[in-house]
């Protein structure tokens, strides 16, 4: 990156009270305040949000796709973690 470039920020938007912030996209801005203002203009022009988080992209740490197997496969054979695994009499309507 050219030192004269503005850093990259990840933008998260809460679409309405009660819901999680969700990743909306990214943008370049000089600082956090400017990132929030730009995110307002870019991602909420049609009332898509009531709250904005911005995080500098360099601070996001991600799992590696190469490790996806060892990370996520152990959950594959543990169907007993799902409610549908259990046989109950039909008379039990809701449980």
């Amino acid at each position, binding site marked *: 990156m050219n030192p*004269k470039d*503005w850093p990259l920020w990840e933008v998260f938007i809460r679409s309405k009270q009660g819901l999680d912030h969700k990743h909306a*996209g990214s943008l370049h801005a000089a*600082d956090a305040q400017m990132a929030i203002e730009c995110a307002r203009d870019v991602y909420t022009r*049609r009332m898509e949000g009531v709250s904005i988080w911005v995080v500098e992209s360099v601070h996001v740490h*991600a799992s590696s796709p190469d490790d996806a197997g060892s990370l996520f496969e152990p959950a594959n054979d543990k169907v007993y973690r799902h409610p549908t695994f259990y046989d109950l009499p039909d008379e039990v309507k809701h449980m």
Partner: protein
Amino acid sequence: MQNLEQLELQFQAKIDAEIKIEPKDWMPEAYRKTLIRQISQHAHSEIVGMLPEGNWITRAPSLRRKAVLLAKVQDEGGHGLYLYSAAETLGIDRDTLIHDLHSGKAKYSSIFNYPSLTWADMGAIGWLVDGAAIMNQVMLCRTSYGPYARAMVRICKEESFHQRQGYEIMLTLAQGSPEQKRMAQDALNRWWWPSLMMFGPPDSESTNSEASIKWKIKRMSNDELRQRFVDATVPQAELIGLKVPDKDLKWNEERGHYDFGALDWDEFWAVVKGNGPCNKERLEQRVKAYEDGAWVREAALAHAEKKKERAEKVGAVA
């Protein structure tokens, strides 16, 4: 360590199984390059596309039309940003993308090298140019690269008003005075063929198509999309009493599609190569805007650094 051939097979298997490719996943270099070229070209088109319409904001015939046009041009700026961000996930930085546009290395849609001469052009651009873009973009919502597909979904949601406002302008003019109706017809005459060219060269001559379809970057060919656009648009012209400027245009019962006349591909290539009516002006405007904005970019960064230093000093004292 897997060899390249295995990786390529696994990659293609994912594509075939409709699993999206994400930024950190392995991908063939040619896939990455094709995407950078296509997404950046798309981003540049959004940004350069602000110019022909920006030309009319101060001269819009009513406050309503002016507010709408401003909103549309602002959307296009936003669309450019979504796309630049998607391109950046492929490991190229924004500065390089902008530089490639300014040097002429990267292209943008040739349609924006045509001038917007009258107010009716705002109608024709929204209706035809955005209409053609939407055909392409709806297909791209299902493209195989995740960040590109997500940007396209967002863009498509916003784009539909662009076409409707354009058609509404044409409708209003077509129902107006004879002079206004002539203006609308003249705009259709000038924008029809360049709009059809937006879908790119015919399939028989398109160099990028085959790999793009195999990798599901594209899911329809240039000619298929062009046909779909003609089929959708001709009845819309008829409905408002305008005539599509093509003497060969005719419904083909057997094919279930309109037959249409041959496109002037010499003109297409001339404009692509830089000899359209406005190529020079558009690029000059972009470069000027970028250079005139340099002090703002530098000042914002200096301000951010100063604020950070001050905050650190206060922190150290406390």
